[in-house]
């Protein structure tokens, strides 16, 4: 199996736009995943009976093959980017929900009591005490969800989207390895860079943890 280097040189524009499209799909999914899972996690954290139900439901969703989710969305959102993003968001939920609940659980009861004693209102306690303290665990979830989504985007190539995944079906149909190799390498690179950026973001967001390291 040889790499056709000139193909890569001739396709830098295409590769750039596919990479950006790939990244955009993954990041949009993680964004919506956070938007949905943060409130759900707060509910799951506070209302014990709902906790098992919500986590269980997200676990079951996780066992559904991603291709099936994309196809089953076709009557709803057709062959669009929306279908890709909804499908990916479903998979980010299990990671984000679980980690956010665990993050909130990890906040010491004493800390919350102290906030209460100081007269802080519940919502304010959540936003200024609990969530910031849960942030490291939540960010760990965001990192996993991001890497996973970047890997998963390519499945949407079966419904005509999929960013770098298009290189896989293209190479497959033409018995042409170069685009496939390039697609795999770029996907991994994208994941590694995104992960590193998130680590940096976490460093910036949690100044109180720096002294420990």
């Amino acid at each position, binding site marked *: 199996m040889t790499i056709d280097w000139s193909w890569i040189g001739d396709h830098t524009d295409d590769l750039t736009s596919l990479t950006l499209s790939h990244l955009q799909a993954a990041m949009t999914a993680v964004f919506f995943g956070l938007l949905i899972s943060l409130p759900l996690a707060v509910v799951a954290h506070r209302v014990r009976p709902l906790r098992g139900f919500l986590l269980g439901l997200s676990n079951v969703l996780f066992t559904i*093959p991603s291709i099936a989710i994309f196809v*089953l969305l076709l009557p709803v959102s057709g062959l669009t980017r929306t279908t890709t993003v909804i499908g990916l968001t479903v998979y980010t939920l299990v990671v984000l929900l679980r980690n956010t609940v665990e993050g909130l659980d990890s906040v010491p009861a004493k800390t919350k009591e102290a906030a209460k004693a100081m007269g802080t209102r519940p919502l304010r306690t959540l936003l200024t005490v609990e969530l910031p303290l849960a942030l490291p665990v939540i960010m760990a979830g965001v990192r996993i969800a991001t890497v996973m989504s970047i890997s998963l985007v390519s499945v949407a190539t079966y419904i005509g989207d999929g960013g770098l995944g298009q290189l896989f079906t293209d190479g497959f149909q033409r018995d042409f390895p170069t685009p496939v190799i390039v697609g795999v390498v770029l996907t991994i690179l994208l994941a590694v860079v995104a992960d590193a950026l998130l680590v940096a973001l976490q460093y910036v967001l949690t100044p109180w943890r720096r002294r420990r390291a």
Partner: protein
Amino acid sequence: MFELFKNLGTWLTSGSQWAGSDGIAHRLGEHLQYSLLATLIAAAIGLPLGLLIGHTGKGAFVAINLASFGRALPTVGLVVLVFLAGGLSMLPVYVALVALAVPAIVTNTYAGMTAVDPDVKDAARGQGMRGHQVLFQVELPLALPLIMTGLRLALIQVVATATIAAYVSFGGLGRYVFDGLAQRDLVQVLGGAVLVAVVAVVLDLLLSTLQRFLFLPHARTDSRGGTPTRTA
């Protein structure tokens, strides 16, 4: 939506749908075969690796980073790549499934090993136990809950991902998903998806029950296990 689920009932319960080489029974068997074999191979690679790294404390950084690389590996790309390199066989599917399962097994095994109290290990050595005795008689039993969590995680991921076998002409429950996509037969797609989910949930329950019976002293399933991930 209601119509879809009503038709799903008919699809799942019709006798003709269960029989024959494209029947549910046969496809279910294929799917189980792919998933279990891939998970076994992954365990044969991942368990020793995780134990070794955990026991010696060497190579942990490399292993954990490789594992997160593994999480980024796009299954579709890997399957196509191995197919183009080696031609049409089940090899591409197994390579992709094993690549998906190994990181979950290694990281959880390693996590289980590092969670063992160092004092316990010191005490074992103090009693004159050798390295391998400490590993197999002390560390391994204590790490088992997390190791099992890793295996269950790997199996669930593999069951859902084994769908990809159908992309390169093979069987399994993914056949219904890919054929249903090509024919725009959503009932078939939903049927395949539901069956995959049921297989994953049932296998997970079986493993957790097994875990409870086999390792009674350490029976509680450990929630510190790694987060599941998906690459297809």
